C-alpha cells in the first residue's frame, strides 16, 4: 500500500478484548502498536448491517443509530471493512483518514476488501484457538480443584478403625467425581467408649472439604471435654456459626458407644436417621436438632439405644438414599430400610447395600454425591471381631462406576497365597466369558501383584492381610490388590533386560512388575500413605492379541 494510513483490526465479540492493532507503514518498516478498543454489543444494529454490507462501509455517512458507530467515529475511524466468516461478523478492519487526507478510492476499497476476505478465516481460526486454550485452562483449574478437595477429604478420614472386642466395625467411603463434604470419624474416649461421627457438609469441592476438616477438628476437641453427645453438638455449633461461609451448613450425627454394654447415646444435627436392624425388625434412631452452623444457641435432643447381640447399626450419608436409577427414580429410604431388614446377623451389611444400590442404578451410573456408610454390629460371640475400612476412589479416577463386585476377600501375607487368590478368582471370572488366553494373563498378572503385596508391601508379615477386590462392568474386569505398605517404593522399577541379566549387569530376578505391565491391559497404582493399591484392568475380549507380537 502506498498510502500511509492507519489500519486497525478489531476482533469482535461479546467480551472486551484488548486486541486492536495499529499498523503504520513507514519507510523503516511497519510499526505495530495497540489501537483504541471498541466494544460492539451483540444487539447493536450495526452488527446486522455489517453482516449484510458485503464490503467496506463509510462510517461517517452511515445512517444508523448505533453506539458502536459513534465509538468508531470518536476513535477517528473513516472506513470499516467487516470481517465475515461463514456469515458471522468476527471482526472489523478499521481505517482512519488517509494520511494524504484524500478520500479512499474504489481501488483502495477493493484492495481492503480482498485483504478482509483473506484475513477473516485466519482471524476466526485464531479466535477458536484462543477459545480452546481458555477452555483447556479452565478445565485444568477444575481438575486441580478436584484433586485438592480429594486430598483434603482423604487426609481427614480416619486412618484406621477401632478394633472393639465383640464388635464388627466397617466403613465405606466413595467420593463422587466432584467431591462432596462427607465425613466419618471414630474417637477413642475414656473407659473404652468410642465416639462415632458421620456428617455431610452442604456444597462440594474445596470449600466443603475445608469446612469438613474444620468441623471434624472442632468436634474432636469438644468430644474430649464433654460427655454428652447433645452438648458436644451444641458446642460445635457455637464454634462453627461465626466461621462457616454463608449458605453452608453441616449435618452431623454424633453418638457414644459403650462396647461393653451395647449402649449407644446419640444426638443428631439434622443428619440422616441411623437404622438399627434387630432380630424382629428395623428401627430408626430419631433425635431432634438443627444442622450445625446455621444459627447460634441451638440445643440437641439426646437419645439412647441398646444394641444387642447380632444387631447392626447403620449410619449413612444421602449419597445412597438420593441415588437415582436411569429413569430418575430415587433409591430412597424404603429400599434402604428393606436392605437393612436382611442385614440382621450378617457381617456384610455394607456389601449387601452396595450390591442393592448397583442393581438399582444399573451399569454406567455416574455417582451423584459422596457415599459414606458406617456399620457397627455386635457379634453373638462366636464370630471374630473385625474392623474393615474401604475407601473407593474409582469414581475420582474417572471410571464409569464400580460395576458389580465379583469377589472381595483378604489373604494373609504368606508366599504361596498368590495361588490361593488366582484359584479363587479363576472360576467366577471364567464364567463371565473371558477369553481363555486372557484369563491366563490375568492369573499371571494378579499372582505377581499379590506376590509383590505380600513380599514388598506387607514384608511377609503373616498377620497383615492383602485385600483383593474384583469387579466387572460387563466389558472389563478390574482387580484391586491392596497392601499396608503405603508410600513404599514399588519393587523392580528397572526394566528387566535379558542381556544385562545374562552378563551379570542386572540381578536375574526382577521380572514381576514387567509381567504385570505386559499381562494387564491397564495398571494403576494409588496410595493413601498407609495402604498401597495396585489396580489391574483386563478387557473380557479383545480384537487383536497385541501381547503376542513382541
Amino acid at each position, binding site marked *: 500500500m502506498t498510502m500511509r494510513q492507519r489500519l486497525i483490526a478489531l476482533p469482535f465479540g461479546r467480551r472486551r478484548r484488548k486486541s486492536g492493532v495499529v499498523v503504520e507503514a513507514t519507510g523503516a518498516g511497519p510499526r505495530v502498536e495497540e489501537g483504541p478498543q471498541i466494544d460492539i454489543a451483540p444487539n447493536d444494529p450495526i452488527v446486522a448491517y455489517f453482516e449484510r454490507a458485503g464490503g467496506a462501509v463509510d462510517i461517517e455517512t452511515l445512517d444508523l443509530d448505533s453506539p458502536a458507530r459513534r465509538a468508531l467515529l470518536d476513535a477517528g475511524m473513516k472506513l470499516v471493512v467487516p470481517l465475515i466468516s461463514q456469515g458471522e461478523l468476527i471482526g472489523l478492519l478499521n481505517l482512519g483518514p488517509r494520511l494524504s487526507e484524500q478520500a479512499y478510492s474504489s481501488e483502495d476499497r477493493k484492495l481492503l476488501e480482498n485483504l478482509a476476505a483473506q484475513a477473516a478465516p485466519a482471524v476466526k481460526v485464531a479466535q477458536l484457538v484462543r477459545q480452546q486454550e481458555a477452555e483447556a485452562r479452565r478445565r485444568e483449574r477444575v481438575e486441580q480443584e478436584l484433586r485438592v478437595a480429594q486430598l483434603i477429604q482423604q487426609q481427614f478420614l480416619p486412618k484406621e478403625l477401632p478394633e472393639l472386642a465383640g464388635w464388627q466395625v466397617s466403613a465405606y467411603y466413595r467420593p463422587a467425581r466432584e467431591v462432596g463434604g462427607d465425613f466419618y470419624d471414630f474417637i477413642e474416649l475414656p473407659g473404652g467408649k468410642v465416639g462415632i461421627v458421620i456428617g455431610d457438609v452442604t456444597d462440594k469441592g474445596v470449600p466443603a472439604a475445608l469446612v469438613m476438616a474444620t468441623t471434624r477438628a472442632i468436634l474432636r476437641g469438644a468430644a474430649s471435654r464433654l460427655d454428652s453427645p447433645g452438648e458436644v453438638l451444641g458446642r460445635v455449633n457455637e464454634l462453627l456459626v461465626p466461621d462457616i461461609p454463608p449458605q453452608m451448613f453441616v449435618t452431623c450425627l454424633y453418638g457414644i458407644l459403650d462396647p461393653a454394654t451395647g449402649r449407644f447415646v446419640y444426638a443428631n444435627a439434622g443428619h440422616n436417621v441411623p437404622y438399627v436392624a434387630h432380630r424382629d425388625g428395623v428401627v430408626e434412631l430419631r433425635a431432634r436438632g438443627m444442622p450445625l452452623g446455621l444459627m447460634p444457641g441451638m440445643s440437641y435432643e439426646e437419645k439412647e439405644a441398646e444394641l444387642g447381640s447380632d444387631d447392626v447399626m447403620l449410619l449413612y450419608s444421602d449419597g445412597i438414599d438420593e441415588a437415582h436409577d436411569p429413569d430418575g427414580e430415587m433409591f430412597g429410604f424404603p429400599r434402604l430400610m428393606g436392605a437393612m431388614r436382611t442385614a440382621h446377623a450378617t457381617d456384610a451389611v455394607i456389601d449387601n447395600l452396595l450390591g442393592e444400590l448397583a442393581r438399582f442404578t444399573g451399569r454406567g451410573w455416574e455417582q451423584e454425591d459422596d457415599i459414606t456408610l458406617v456399620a457397627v454390629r455386635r457379634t453373638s460371640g462366636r464370630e471374630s471381631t473385625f474392623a474393615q475400612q474401604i475407601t473407593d476412589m474409582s469414581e475420582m479416577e474417572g471410571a464409569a462406576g464400580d460395576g458389580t463386585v465379583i469377589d472381595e476377600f483378604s489373604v494373609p501375607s504368606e508366599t504361596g497365597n498368590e495361588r490361593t487368590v488366582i484359584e479363587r478368582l479363576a472360576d467366577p471370572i471364567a464364567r463371565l466369558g473371558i477369553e481363555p*488366553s486372557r484369563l491366563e494373563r490375568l492369573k499371571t498378572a494378579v499372582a505377581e501383584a499379590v506376590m509383590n503385596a505380600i513380599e514388598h508391601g506387607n514384608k511377609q508379615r503373616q498377620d497383615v492381610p492383602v485385600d483383593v477386590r474384583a469387579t466387572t462392568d460387563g466389558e472389563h474386569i478390574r482387580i484391586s490388590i491392596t497392601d499396608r505398605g503405603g508410600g513404599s517404593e514399588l519393587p523392580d522399577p528397572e526394566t528387566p533386560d535379558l542381556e544385562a541379566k*545374562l552378563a551379570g549387569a542386572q540381578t536375574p530376578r526382577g521380572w514381576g512388575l514387567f509381567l504385570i505391565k505386559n499381562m494387564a491391559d491397564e495398571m494403576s497404582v494409588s496410595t493413601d500413605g498407609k495402604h498401597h493399591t495396585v489396580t489391574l484392568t483386563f478387557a473380557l475380549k479383545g480384537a487383536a492379541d497385541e501381547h503376542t507380537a513382541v
Partner: protein
Amino acid sequence: MQEPKVTMEVRKADGGAVIDIVGEVTAACEDVLTDAFNQATDQGAKAVVFNFAGLEYMNSSGIGLLVTLLVRANRNGQQICAVGLNDHYRQIFELTRLDEAIGIHEHERDALAAAGV
C-alpha cells in the same frame, strides 16, 4: 520357606539330558531345580532340555531361576532348550526374550538336534 511343589526327573538322552518338570516353578523350587541341573551337568550333558509339559504354574521368581541357570550354562558352554510349553508360557518366554536364549521346540529330538549333540 515354602515347600517346593514340583518334581524334576533327569533323563539321559542322546548326549544331552532332559529334565521333566511336573508342578510349579517358583522361588520354592530353587534347590530342586539346581540339583536337577547339577545332575544333568555331572552326566556331561552339553544340552539340557527342560520339558515343561507338566508345568502347572510359573511365576517371575521361577523365571529368575531360569535366568540364573542360563548364566551358569553359558559359563559351562551348555545349551538350554525348552519343550512342552503351553501358549501362555510360550508368550511369556517371548515377552521376556528368554526364547532368544532358550531354544523353544515342539519335540525333544528337535531340541537335541538344534543343540548340535
